[in-house]
């Protein structure tokens, strides 16, 4: 899976989880702001990703991660 494909997948998952329009979400946007979510909701997304990709993502690896591109980087390093 290419980086772009992974980002598209993350955006689709986030849009589904938070009932957002995927067309309004971009790779380099701050997803906390664009999705209007807090830390609790970010954990829901993290759980979705772990389930979807059958991988564990330690919380500390998400420190400072605010964009789908950065999130894809963290995920790609574990797939």
């Amino acid at each position, binding site marked *: 899976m290419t980086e772009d494909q992974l980002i598209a997948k993350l955006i689709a998952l986030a849009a589904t989880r938070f009932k957002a329009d995927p067309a309004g979400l971009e790779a380099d946007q701050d997803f*906390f702001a664009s999705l209007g*979510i*807090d*830390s*609790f909701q*970010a*954990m*829901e997304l*993290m*759980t979705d990703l*772990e*389930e979807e990709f059958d991988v*564990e993502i*330690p*919380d*500390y690896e*998400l*420190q400072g991660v605010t964009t789908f591109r950065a999130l894809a980087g963290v995920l790609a390093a574990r797939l």
Partner: protein
Amino acid sequence: MSDPAPETRLPLPLKTRFGAWPARVVARRTLRKALGRAGIDPRVPGPAVAADGAGAYFSGRALRWTHAGDVLEVTLHRAPCNEIGTTMLAELEALAAYVRAGAGGAQALLMHSAIERGCSAGADLRELHAGLLGRSEASPLAIAREVRGFLDRIHAVMDTLDQAPLTTVAAVHGVVFGGGFELALTADVIVADKSARFAFPELRLGLVPGFGGIPRLRRDVGNAVVRDLLLTGRSLNATRAQGVGLVSQVVGRGKALQAARGVATQATRFDADTTRLAKRFAKPLPRAELEREKDLFVEMLARPVVLDALTKFVESDDVRPYLP
């Protein structure tokens, strides 16, 4: 999460009414005192207290309980996420007293949260921070005594739930952090929905879990898992938690309460005395380690790093304060 069952008041079973008198009388007094501390006047029959003062159901500011058949259902409902501070503690003490008084004849206890975010985010850090700041003039010894008093109270609650002579089930979802995780660990069986995440983030505050979490976790899972959770502060999802033996059943989002009711109902089909004896055999209380944990917590709390970390947490406007 599904809505809790409608509250109903059921008459106390005969075995409760005609149980061993002296113990009952003592337990009833303890319960009345605990209800009083929780802000409920035990002399006034009403929505929270049964006519005989037994508290067949209870409705407080942080939790409520009711009977559904032979199951005592306890619902935590304190916003924002069932933080455990003095209010929650007082009502948990009332619950513990009710359990010690026979739990209204229930044969199983089911605990769950009505808060969408999850089971519990743990200790009330804002209250702890305010408490430490408000006692900045007090001697370290006086603060240590006060903290130790709080720990003794919460440990008494946790130990009562842990060793209750009936089957206890926790239905958890979302955040199961710190003190909330410790509360869940008192249950005999944990049913988690897929949204549940378990974590001990205490090290970022310069502390260890203080409500009995590490001794109870070590009793139930391997020490490598305990060290991983304690020393990294990372959270485990429900599937992984089941993989390490912490969670009994993982179900879909919003289905934990229903599945836990099934577990609790199953537990009521066995002879109560048989369950009591089996549980006593299978679930020893790690008393010495629990005492050492309290000592360590009090010792660690006295260090400046704790107040600094609490201040940082309380003053943070980060939308991600719970990420380590």
